[in-house]
């Protein structure tokens, strides 16, 4: 019985380090040039067909919270100097 008290937390811990869960964030390289403004990034994402909610700096990239054309919540990681899309993450 005593084992049970440790089993539950251990299972949670084991699940959480399982690689199947890995996701999140992106890296942008060569970001030393002049950064695009939030407005410019927002405009670029809008032109790609996204419904933009917010632009934020995340580590080395811009992170854009938006809805895609089918209305799904997405986080678009864009290069701050070139505006190239580095990664698109779908929220669940």
């Amino acid at each position, binding site marked *: *019985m005593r084992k049970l*008290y440790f089993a539950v*937390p251990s299972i949670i811990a084991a699940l959480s380090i399982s690689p199947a869960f890995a996701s*999140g964030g992106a890296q942008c390289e060569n970001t030393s040039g002049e950064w695009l403004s939030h407005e410019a990034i927002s405009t670029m994402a809008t032109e790609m067909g996204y419904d933009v*909610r917010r632009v934020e700096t995340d580590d080395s990239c811009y992170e854009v919270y938006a809805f895609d054309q089918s209305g799904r919540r997405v986080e678009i990681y864009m290069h701050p100097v070139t505006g190239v899309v580095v990664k698109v993450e779908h929220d669940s």
Partner: protein
Amino acid sequence: MTELHIDQATDGGGVTPPPKVKVWDPVVRVFHWSLVTAFFTAWISAEEWDRVHEWMGYLVLGLITVRILWGIIGARHARFADFVYRPSTILAFLRDSTHLRAKRYLGHNPAGGAMVMALLACLAAVSATGIMLTSDTFWGVEWVEELHEFIVNLTLGLVGLHIAGVVVASLEHRENLVGSMITGWKTNLPKR
């Protein structure tokens, strides 16, 4: 008087050891250590591992929901009625604690009980704001994210005080409260 007590039989020295009492039932113990694990995992996975972070958040919400129900219908020392005290009692207890002469309680002491309620309330607010962040309505809305983070920091502060309180009470009454939260047992010491 030929009756032999188990205590005496195993003790061998002829002195009856102080009686042990079961204070924390399995629900409370599994809840506590699962909560610690889930909360900590959610904290380290934040902004790194969204999936893990969200699952841990749902788990925290599930755990506190069960605990709140258990606080109403559960075992004796698990019930809110057993450890929710009036503010004046809590303040008096804290005052006594600063002089290390606070009364010993078998269940949660008045300050500990207030801490339990504060932690449950904060964790509920963290879960609620977290779920809001996964909805279309609040997608990318900054104030929700800031509120979520603010309450998390508040919770971390409370956890620090919680652990400090456990250490102080353990030293004050020379007992291992952390051990009791693992095994469920406490020593029913006579009042000092």
